[in-house]
């Protein structure tokens, strides 16, 4: 059976990332950042992607990466979720990187060019130009046309698009790399301002094909969905922690509110779902790391479960903080907005359950 535990190396990696994020993006900075123009936190990105080398974890050493795997990447995602870190890690170090890795696997050469190494080092940021709500099984590239080495069309709601140097655009015939400066990008006021969206217009923009067909983009979405589950896990854990701390110190009716069973039992249930989220997220990460035949099931399962757990955790966090949990000055809303957006991102739980119905042969009525 697949190993679902964390290794010592992963524990160390976690400590390093947590310290870096504590230093570079405490939640007060994250909150302030949501009202600034910068599309992401450059200092946190430099620390995690550059200094700690996390962006290159799944990339082989000979291609400029660390030669680890998606398992370790998943641990980084947990930490990023805990911190609601406003960095384009999921977009660049997961989705775009997974697309280029898949392209290289099928093309058998350095199809990603220098870009893969640049992403691995955190020097450049690339994003997969699809609406962030796209599920792994959705049709891709339907709003973009290809003509004589250029792309024309529109892609809406692209996550971290404003942060990108390069857009990887699915279009008929394959996956194309476009210089982000050539595209017209319009920032979107997003529900989750810690991972902002933009609308992308491509008016006959020069493009280079990096992969044929849809396989690379699809592999990226599957990997992305698996990694997102770990982010959701980290977020849920943090919400539970904050809430437990609050319930221990907040007194009403002469007792800590955490002594009331009405609240204790809900948190016990939440903890139980988080324990399950950890098992399914670890399983999904382990499956994508080795290309296990059970990957599609593992990923759909992880998304169907973890999305709901993260939203529940953030909602309980708001509710159990009472009035203070409803204020802009408290971090709960950062988690709530991230959790709800993440639940829609890369396929809603319902879409993933629909995939499971196909995958495990439980056909609809």
């Amino acid at each position, binding site marked *: 059976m697949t190993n679902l*535990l964390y290794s010592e190396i992963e524990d160390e990696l976690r400590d390093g990332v947590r310290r870096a994020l504590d230093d570079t993006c405490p939640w007060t900075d994250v909150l302030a950042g949501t009202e600034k123009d910068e599309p992401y936190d450059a200092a946190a990105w430099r620390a995690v992607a550059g200094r700690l080398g996390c962006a290159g974890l799944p990339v082989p050493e000979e291609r400029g990466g660390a030669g680890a795997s998606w398992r370790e990447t998943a641990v980084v995602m947990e930490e990023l979720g805990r911190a609601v870190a406003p960095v384009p890690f999921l977009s660049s170090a997961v989705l775009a990187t997974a697309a280029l890795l898949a392209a290289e696997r099928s093309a058998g050469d350095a199809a990603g060019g220098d870009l893969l190494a640049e992403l691995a080092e955190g020097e450049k940021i690339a994003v997969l130009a699809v609406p962030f709500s796209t599920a792994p099984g959705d049709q891709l590239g339907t709003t973009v046309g290809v003509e004589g080495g250029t792309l024309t069309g529109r892609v809406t709601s692209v996550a971290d698009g404003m942060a990108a140097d390069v857009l990887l655009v699915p279009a008929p015939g394959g996956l194309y790399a476009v210089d982000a400066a050539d595209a017209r990008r319009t920032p979107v006021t997003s529900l989750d301002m810690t991972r902002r969206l933009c609308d992308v217009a491509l008016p006959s923009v020069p493009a280079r094909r990096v992969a044929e067909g849809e396989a690379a983009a699809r592999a990226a979405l599957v990997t992305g969905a698996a990694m997102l589950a770990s982010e959701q896990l980290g977020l849920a854990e943090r919400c539970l922690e904050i809430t*437990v701390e609050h319930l221990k110190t907040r007194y009403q009716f002469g007792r800590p509110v955490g*002594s009331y069973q009405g609240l204790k039992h809900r*948190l*016990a*249930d939440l903890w139980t779902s988080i*324990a*399950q989220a950890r098992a399914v997220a670890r399983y999904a990460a382990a499956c994508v790391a080795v290309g296990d035949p059970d990957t599609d099931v593992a990923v759909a*399962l992880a998304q169907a479960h973890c999305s709901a757990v993260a939203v529940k955790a953030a909602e309980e966090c708001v509710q159990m903080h009472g009035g203070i949990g409803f204020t802009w000055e408290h971090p709960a809303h950062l988690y709530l907005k991230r959790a709800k957006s993440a639940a829609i991102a890369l396929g809603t739980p319902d879409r993933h*359950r629909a995939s499971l119905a196909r995958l495990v042969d439980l056909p609809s009525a």
Partner: protein
Amino acid sequence: MSPAPPDAEDLRERVRSFLADHDPSAMDRLEFLRARFDAGLAWVHYPPGLGGLGAPRALQPVVDEEFAAAGAPRNDPERNAIGLGMAAPTILAHGTEEQKKRFLRPLWTGEEIWCQLFSEPGAGSDLAALATRAVRDGGHWIVNGQKVWTSMAHEARWAILVARTDPDVPKHRGLTYFVCDMTAPGVEVRPLRQITGEAEFNEVFLTDVRIPDEHRLGAVGEGWRVATTTLMNERVAIGGNAAGREDGMIGVVARLWRERPELRTPGLHDALLRLWVEAEAARLTGERLRQQLAAGAPGPEGSAVKLAFARLNQEISGLELELLGEDGLRYDDWTMRRPTRVDFTRRSPGYRFLRAKGNSIEGGTSEILRNIIAERVLGLPGEIRVDKDVAWKDLPK
């Protein structure tokens, strides 16, 4: 220095050479099981001489698979769940050398079935409030009281028993833990019929039962500490069987769904998929818990597994009845029976639906488990304890 514990290859080798000397098809079943125990190939993580080899617990499947492949007889663990899951680890942790030698072998082979004399009419969740009295009489203890909901007492040769030896101190402090001979004079077992129609559990009346002091487990007054070992193992035992995808209740419903397209509706489809996801998440959580145990770092996830297992079994079996529609209105048999093993997935859908209701009561109710998680895992403040410093005899009953 003691030799290094055996690894998987050593174990396979030992099983093979054991099988070379003990042909399962040519031997008496019990003789075979006893020899397997004596060879240290029963529960490999137990110490040498007590059925094990001090090997990592994670290697047990290696041994079980080898024996299964050779067509060796099983020790039929479903018949002795309480013995294997609760009595054995408690005896191992708190028993004297003599007690371990006396009890563990016939327990493992299934020659002696065990039951758990803990709950009483006045003490279920609040087990420490129990009233059964044990009074010292020379080298013996005289026990009087009533136990209830005792599963498999009608099958059991031995019981683990908690009784009050000092009523003048607060409830947790006055308890002592015993092994009780179910064939001793004064032990009376009466069937207690359940909502399923059968009687898997019992009332047990103890009238002047004499227990030799050699059958005390742990020190006098230390019963609560010993019982805690039992209860922790109970939660692991109830929720934590190794399982493959769709092995449990969800598999029964999934197969029904595949075989009977005419029963399908959109609402039930959605409900089924949600439960499938939850069942698989719970299964993987159990698997992760086992990996933690095997790595020597048990987490508190045991409570989570038990909590989830109870709710899932109830919801899945409820869904099964609705899916069946008209057939869900029928029941197989209300006759009062005396089962000898517990298997939640056997018999009819109606039985499964009813039996699953016990899953959130037996082995600590789901509410008590939530208290435990909230307090011990999350560190939230404890319940208000009005009985903490009061002598047991002065508590309101």
